[in-house]
Structure formats: C-alpha cells, structure tokens
C-alpha cells in the first residue's frame, strides 16, 4: 500500500467511523453521547463556543470563498 492510499484510507476510516458513531449515539441503548449534546456542553463557555463556530465557518471559507483559497 502506498503512502497516498494509506492517507486516503485513514480519512475514509475516520469518516466512516464518524457516521457510525453518529448513528450509534442515536440508539436508545447507546453509551456514547450524542454530538449535539457534546457540542451543547462545550458551548456553555464562550471560548469553546466561538471556536466551534469559527472552525465550521472556516470550512466554508476555505472551500468556497476565493480569499480562503489564497
């Protein structure tokens, strides 16, 4: 396996893992906290709340706005 394939496989595994985690957290018997609850808990304080929104905004900025790609 090449380094490139390994890198892509890592991204894919994490992506699949996140989807599985999200699905699992919505089961009644889940022992994993839902993402919305985790975010709400973090967002009770200003700094993490701003960081969460800043990170999400940057995703859009980076992939969509011309200044973000420069």
């Amino acid at each position, binding site marked *: 396996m*090449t*380094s*490139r394939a390994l*890198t*892509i496989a*890592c*991204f894919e595994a*994490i992506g699949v*893992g*996140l989807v599985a*985690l999200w699905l699992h*957290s*919505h089961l*009644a*018997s*889940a*022992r*994993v*906290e*839902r*993402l*919305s*609850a*985790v*975010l*709400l*808990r*973090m*967002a*009770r*304080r*200003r*700094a*993490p*709340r*701003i*960081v*969460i*929104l*800043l990170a*999400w*905004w*940057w*995703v*859009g*900025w*980076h*992939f*969509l*706005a*011309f*200044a*973000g*790609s*420069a």
Partner: protein
Amino acid sequence: MLGHVRDLSIPIVTITGVVHLVRGALVDAAVFLAVAAALAVDGTADRGRVPRPAGPTTAGHTPAGPLQAGPLQAGPLQAGPTPAGSTPGGPTAAGPTRAGPTAAGPEQGSEPLLVPPSALAGSALVALLLAAGGRFNLAMTIVVAALGVSWLVTAWPQPARPQVTGPQVTGPQVTGPQPVWPQPTEPARDPPAGHLAAWPWAAAALGWCLVELVSFLHEVGRDTSSVDHPTFSSLIGPVLDNRLVLWLALTGWLAGGYALVRIARRAARG
C-alpha cells in the same frame, strides 16, 4: 477530559492562526488571531466583572467548599456533571432522559430536530443560488464572510447571571446557602463514570487532525499538496468543482451552521 480541552480554546485558535500565517493565508490568519485576541481580552474583562458574594471569606466559600450544595448548584449554568438533558436547553439538545445509568443503562431520549425541514429547505435554496456561480467568486465570498460575522456575533454573549434566590449574607456570619455565580474561568467538569461517553468524538477529531497534520507537513509548497500525503483539502477540492456536489456540500454547510448557531444560542442563554 472535555474541561481541559475547553481551557485550550485560545491557544488552539492562536496556533491555528500562526499556521495560516506560515502557509500564507493572510486573511485566515488575521481572522483567527483577531478572534484569539478578542477572546483573551474579553476573558480578562469577564474575570473582572464576576460578582462576589458580600461578607467575609471563609474556607467554606471556595468553589469546592460545602456551599456547593447551595440551591443554584443544580441550576442550568453548572456545566459539569449535570447531564445535558437537564439543562434549560432541555430536551432539544441532549434529550430529556439522559439522566445517567439506570437499570437499562443510560438513555438519550428523542429530541426535536436541530435543523427543521423549513431551515433545511431554506439552506438548499440559498445553496442552489450560490452554487450556480461556482466556487471562489465574489458573491460566495461575501455571503460566507457575512455569515461568519453574524455567527460569531450571535454566539459571543455569555450566559446571564442567575438571580440571587438564596438567603442573603447580612453580617459576618454566613447563615445559609449562598448563591453561586457562574465562573467564566472555571473549567467545566467531566461527567462522572457511568455517564455517556464523549471521548469517541474527541478521538475521531484528534485522529483526523493527526492525519491532516502529517499531510500538511509533507506539503511541497504553499497549497501544493504532496502526492504521497494528500491533505483533506486537496482530495475534496476537485470533487467540489462538480455543481451538484457543491450544492449538496453547501446545503450541508449552511444547515450545519444553522444547527451550531442554535446550539450556541441555547448555551449562551444558559
């Protein structure tokens, strides 16, 4: 663990800003460093504004002291072991039944959708208009920048301080439980063992950051991804050139932003 992560918010934003500076993304760097500075300044100002109960200080007045059993401890602003489902945000974010382990194990109840169908439809419509022009154009840039400003302004306020409901201090003697003000600098505590785990989310995020960091360090030059170690951006970027994929991604980004703003506002209200 999440309490410690929260304390690292400002350093994380600062380091990210420096990384943007190194990679030559000056606008990104300016935004991140400005936000880090604003958070640091505002945090310092908040500490100066935190009210203190009148009267003499005794060992019992410390946050870890016996007054933690005061009437407000079970209130909405105590971000520690209190299950998210018991917050005023209540059933919407974490579900009303997340009350720790039971005979059947911890449960998370049903919750209203963070993104209702009307918001999803609105996001899809806006995305359709924006995606028609493709990426990296002026309209898209203005919309994304405006959304960023509005999101940050919306999320900035701190939770309101609770009303003083307990017995008042009338002299040097403390006669009853005292109100406990939310401490902006107090790290939130982790839920006790047996509660629902949040670490898998942190592990996944950390794993993604690690892979991206390795790829970033292998970059040939600014925005020139290594063939052997492609960054996430270099993999996703070309896919987004397809208008349909762009529309779907833009819809998801807008709807996700809507959900995060709702979470932020709910948390800011306490």
